């Protein structure tokens, strides 16, 4: 099986967020970058497990500038066979999806893996877009997946529970917690990653339909109002007459 895993680079979860250029760009000063956790822990590891069980190749793909190579090399160190980086500063979800789809068509993959969302823009759109461009079935928020020949049985999160579906290859999915367990790259993996192929390709021309006009920070939270632990009547009154939630 040929497996493609789409990975992105995101600011670490604990990053303090601020903006520059008149609030139109993220202030990247001091920001620590990581591989998007859903891509790394769940999508990539599940792809590697499938390869280990049934053979095949795992290719990582990333849309971004040369700075992203550290994140890509980490994916190779965890166990991917090779990588493709589409060399561009990036753009909207649609822009990124078009770049990935273009390469994915060439590779004729059996499965394309995404994380359920990136932890920076929380868009959760690219997987569905690429699936549509490749005319593949798409299963979002997959938490469990078993293969039997060319048929996958997948559990996916829905409101208040889960749905179990069956789908034949080729297909695309987005990975959520439960699909696999995080793997830490070992020394051998890190050494081998240096020699694995990382193919840098030129982007295709895509005009963006969506752009960020500006960013704002949420209004500062009012200070917490403390209520005496003995006086729950007061809390209930406040929830009723002040917060108006009960």
């Amino acid at each position, binding site marked *: 099986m040929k497996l493609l895993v789409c990975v992105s680079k995101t600011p670490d979860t604990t990053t303090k967020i601020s903006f520059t250029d008149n609030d139109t760009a993220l202030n990247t000063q001091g920001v620590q970058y990581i591989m998007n956790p859903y891509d790394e822990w769940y999508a990539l590891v599940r792809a590697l497990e499938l390869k280990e069980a049934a053979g095949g190749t795992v290719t990582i793909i990333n849309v971004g500038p040369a700075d992203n190579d550290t994140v890509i090399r980490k994916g190779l160190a965890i166990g991917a066979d090779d990588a493709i980086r589409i060399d561009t500063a990036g753009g909207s979800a649609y822009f990124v999806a078009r770049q990935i789809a273009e390469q994915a068509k060439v590779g004729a993959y059996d499965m394309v893996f995404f994380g359920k969302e990136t932890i920076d823009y929380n868009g959760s759109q690219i997987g569905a877009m690429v699936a549509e461009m490749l005319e593949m079935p798409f299963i979002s928020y997959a938490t469990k997946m078993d293969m039997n020949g060319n048929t996958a049985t997948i559990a996916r999160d829905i409101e208040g529970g889960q749905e179990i579906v069956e789908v034949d290859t080729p297909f695309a999915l987005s990975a959520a917690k439960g699909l696999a367990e995080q793997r830490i790259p070992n020394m051998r993996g890190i050494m081998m990653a240096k020699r694995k192929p990382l193919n840098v390709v030129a982007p295709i021309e895509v005009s963006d*339909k*969506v752009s960020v006009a500006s960013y704002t920070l949420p209004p500062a939270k009012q200070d917490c109002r403390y209520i005496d632990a003995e006086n729950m*009547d007061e809390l209930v009154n406040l929830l009723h007459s002040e917060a108006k939630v009960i």
Partner: protein
Amino acid sequence: MVLVYTSSPEGQLKKSAFEAVTFGHKTAQQLGTEVVALTIGNVNNAGVLGQYGAAKVLNVAGADSFDSGSHAAIIAQVANQIGANVVVMPDDSTGKSLLGRVAVRLDAGSVSSVKSVPDTGAGFVVQKNVFSGKAIAAYNISSDKKVLSIAGNTFPPEVVGADVAVEAASVDVPANRVRVKEVNTVKGTVPLPEAELVVSAGRGMKDPGNWGIIDELAEILGATTACSRPVADVGWRPHHEHVGQTGVAIRPNLYIAIGISGAIQHLAGVNQSKTIVVINKDPEAPFFKAADYGIVGDLFDVVPRLNEAIKKFKAAN
């Protein structure tokens, strides 16, 4: 024209459908046009969508189980038939796999989890939370067609009209390639993403056998229960209750956090709640910084007392 796709798990329209039509109605008013609602499959009482502003309700029969591929094809055909410039859908488990597909089919710009009615003063600008709630981005969509999914619990349903008749839409219904085998959902409670009141507990509970006071609180409030990640990881609580960055992201009117420290990854999933109450015995717990109301105390004393106070309040009101 504004087209609103409404999801209807097991044939039932939910609050998310009424929210989406309310959003669609407000958007249509701004654009000086009308809103048409679309239901797919066998749906009970779809005419009720007229109450939330739908001028017309269309139904496509014969695609009862969910497959984003065939559903996206249906939505795009209907959008083209009625000449929709804006397509709206809920940001739920259906919207998350449909939004991108419909956008590609219609060659439309798309934004997910929108939290503001479009500002059409200069362009077409919608707001969305980014960086897990740590910032808000205003997106401008420049294409003729726009596809939006809207954040849950953000646009309260507003009744503005009366039931309308449901008309059948005639489109090609492609065969499903995803075969739904089972749907396992909790019955009798509101699913977390839709819940207005949420009672959540964490490792401070010490033992799964101690959850009785939490269940009681949820029951007397009519709230849905949630939990922190470690509690779900060790199997004290079911996986679907886990909220936070890696779990479900929610925005209820009231979130009561009991014995949860308030780690940044937990807050990422709950910081959009309108009112947050924190019960924790550690006055230094980070959660108090995100709280509206805080109670420093032992949860095993405080929660039973809170339960009594709510019972008293409910009896009097």
